């Protein structure tokens, strides 16, 4: 499971609230993909596992 750090405040259309500085814990790969692809400036990976996964997503999108 992955963890993202919130960089900027975001109210997601599905009602989720992301506040700066908060950790988004226990995320699945599809959840991370959706957030990183749609809101790339709002999140970053917290741990190495998540950072690597995000890099894979970005490379896969090229």
């Amino acid at each position, binding site marked *: *499971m992955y963890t993202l750090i*919130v960089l900027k405040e975001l109210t*997601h259309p*599905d*009602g*989720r*609230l*992301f*506040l700066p500085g*908060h*950790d*988004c*814990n*226990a*995320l*699945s790969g599809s*959840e991370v993909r959706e957030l990183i692809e749609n809101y790339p400036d709002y999140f970053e990976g917290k741990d190495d596992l998540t950072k690597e996964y995000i890099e894979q997503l970005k490379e896969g999108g090229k």
Partner: protein
Amino acid sequence: MNGVTTPAGSLSIVKIPRPDTRKYYILNRIRLGFWAGWFQKQIALATNKLFGVGVFTSELRGVQIRNGIEYDLGILSYRVVTNAFVAFLVDNLQTDTTELGDFKYHDSGVGTTAENAADTAIETTDGESRATGTQTESAANAYRSVGTISYTTTKAITEHGVFSQATGATLVDRSVFTAINVVSGDSIQFTYTITFTAGG
């Protein structure tokens, strides 16, 4: 010995006006914000009735008290539940030391009856012990518990519930789904998330 006493003094009366509740009632109800809140509440309730999803609604009522007499002002306003409150709810679902902070016990079963808000238990338990979930938040207003149940026999798992204790207790949510066929040695990691959307 006789005498006469004549009490002397003055008496005055001050009329204390009672609150004009009727005027207040009218003035408060010509606000656009009052009716916007009322309308939004009706939409939320209709969504609940039509689709069975849980909703948050709120209202504020007031009673003015003057000289010990209560004057009912009725509904003052509808909404708005704050971001801070929903984030606080989610934080306390993880950390509260009372049973509020213990909705982390995952159970599964083999029942197939559709979910109902009146449910209080798994329909047909599968005989396995409840798993103690790891409590966290996937967003500021989204409480999440991740629990892994291990299976010791072959069965078709079709339902799941999150409870506040390892046995019995209060059920947060019961879910029914297509059978996940497991054999001895299998396990299922269940990730349960409840999101509290502010604004209600």
